[in-house]
């Protein structure tokens, strides 16, 4: 079991309130992603759950039991760090076995579990190497191995993929998702990358300045962002947010339309614009347009085969069922 509950949890460093009191429940077996721009407090929140930081107020419950005063070693949680944090003086085998040794398991059982974890993570042939002799991806696997051997109640991942190159990141993302499907253990994953959040999460928690902006499944956040911050943060390319007289026509202070929900046409449409840079990805083409009606450039996502010359005159129309309206405070208007 690994149900984690935060009741009015707050954190301040001196006079700086990093996290104002917040409530959050993470259900057993759920893959929850904390996402937000850097400095939004997502890592601090994870460290509060881990016990590596003391809360300034509120309580952390793990499986219903108050864990607020329990040291990290006794919370039954495993953590994978951004820097991997492997023990440089120990072999891969000893690194993975360390939590088992701390738990006082006998040698044979340690060996068995290490072998099993190494098998799962393709590390069997590296067991006798030191971390310094491994590539970034292999080190990350060792860090994950060290977390899974002790069969924790929950895994905490602190931006585990941000030190890897793009190709490896996609691979590891899949591996972690696979691992979650197989182990069915609660996982809390911190990232600033909304693509990671969207692809991996059962539940996304969007944070800004220590506050929870919205909690929901990836598609809920995509379809019904509760404010302009979430609307702009979730989705790639970003949602077009338009304020001013054009938004007022729809009875809102700001309207939002995702690039994939704009129709582009040479003949007719609601807004007129000129084509700027086109980005051809093969499957899709992103057009960056300048419309006299808006201040900011507009991004449109079109099928890969569409093409317009630089400077071409085109027309745009939003698909009305996908138009998001926000009030002056940024909140969603239903």
């Amino acid at each position: 079991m690994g149900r984690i509950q935060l009741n009015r949890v707050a954190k301040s460093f001196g006079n700086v309130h990093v996290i104002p009191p917040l409530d959050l429940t993470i259900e057993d077996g759920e893959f929850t992603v904390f996402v937000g721009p850097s400095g939004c407090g997502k890592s601090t929140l994870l460290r509060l759950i881990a016990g590596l930081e003391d809360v300034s107020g509120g309580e952390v419950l793990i499986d219903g039991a108050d864990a607020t005063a329990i040291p990290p070693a006794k919370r039954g949680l495993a953590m994978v760090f951004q820097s991997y944090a492997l023990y440089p003086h120990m072999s891969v085998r000893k690194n993975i076995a360390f939590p088992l040794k701390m738990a006082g398991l006998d040698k044979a059982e340690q060996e068995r579990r290490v072998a099993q974890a190494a098998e799962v993570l393709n590390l069997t042939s590296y067991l006798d190497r030191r971390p310094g002799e491994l590539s970034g991806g292999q080190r990350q696997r060792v860090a994950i191995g060290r977390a899974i051997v002790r069969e924790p109640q929950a895994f905490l991942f602190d931006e585990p993929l941000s030190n890897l190159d793009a190709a490896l990141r996609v691979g590891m993302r899949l591996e972690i998702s696979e691992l979650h499907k197989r182990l069915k253990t609660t996982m809390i994953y911190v990232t600033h990358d909304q693509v990671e959040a969207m692809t991996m999460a059962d539940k996304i928690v969007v944070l800004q300045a220590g506050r929870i902006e919205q909690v929901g499944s990836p598609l809920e956040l995509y379809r019904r962002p509760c404010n302009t911050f979430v609307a702009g943060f979730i989705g790639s390319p970003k949602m077009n947010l338009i304020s001013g007289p054009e938004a007022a026509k729809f009875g809102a202070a700001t309207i939002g339309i995702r690039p994939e929900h704009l129709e582009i046409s040479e003949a007719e449409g609601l807004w007129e614009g000129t084509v700027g840079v086109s980005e051809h990805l093969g499957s899709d083409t992103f057009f960056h347009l300048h419309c006299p009606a808006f201040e900011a450039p507009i991004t449109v996502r079109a099928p890969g085969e569409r093409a317009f010359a630089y400077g071409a005159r085109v027309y745009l129309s939003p698909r009305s069922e996908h138009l998001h309206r926000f009030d002056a405070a940024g909140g969603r208007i239903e």
Partner: protein
Amino acid sequence: MARAVTPRRKALNTLIAWTIGLILFFPILWIFILSFKSEGAAILSPLEVLRAPWTLESYQIVQGRSDYFGHFTNSVVISLGSTLLGLLVAVPAAWAMAFVPSARTKDILMWMLSTKMLPAVGVLYPIYLMFISLHLLDTRIGLILVLMLINLPIIIWMLYTYFREIPGEILEAARMDGAGLREEVLHVLTPMALPGLASTVLLNVILAWNEAFWTLKLTAAKAGPLTAFIASYSSPEGLFYAKLSAASVMAIAPILVMGWFSQKQLVRGLTFGAVK
């Protein structure tokens, strides 16, 4: 960034470096040569000194006249004792300052360093008087205490710099892996800080071994280390260059040998943080 150096320039640099090195080393070399000459030959002009016959006479006299092994033992006990006692205080202090620093940590470190700027003679009388009333004069334990206190700022600073280099995330990982404070220090911190601990011990043994001000002022016959042994040959009655040289060679030989074998460790320790 690599710079192009012509072979001629390189040769010149080498020559300059060797010249400076030899000038610095010359006094030690000369002491070594003099120690193998007779007392009469030692006061001659340098060329005549070199031509004079080699002899072990001075070593025999020094050995016969004074208790080399007594002084040697005192040196070993005092330098090792003060270093180990220093570590006992410095490891927890440096650990606390490196891993749980407070707003005042930097001030405390600077304050400790500032004590090294005080001339030793400034506190000679208070310490001397305290030694009298505590009956510590001419005792090894007294010297161990005073040398430990004098080198403590350096030990703490060195360990602090080493501990700071250990990423906090690794210690946090150990905590997450179920390690308590004892296991964390035993299985993770100590093995990772071992090179740092080793060079701290080495440097402080050397500093304590070579310390002359306090060892000469606070000892007489019983607790005098090798510094006192050398000093006993520079007497007002006359010049005994050969015997003084022999005594000096005997006093510095052990630490020189130790330094030679631990060169790599020492250089790493002294330049740690500066060169990576």
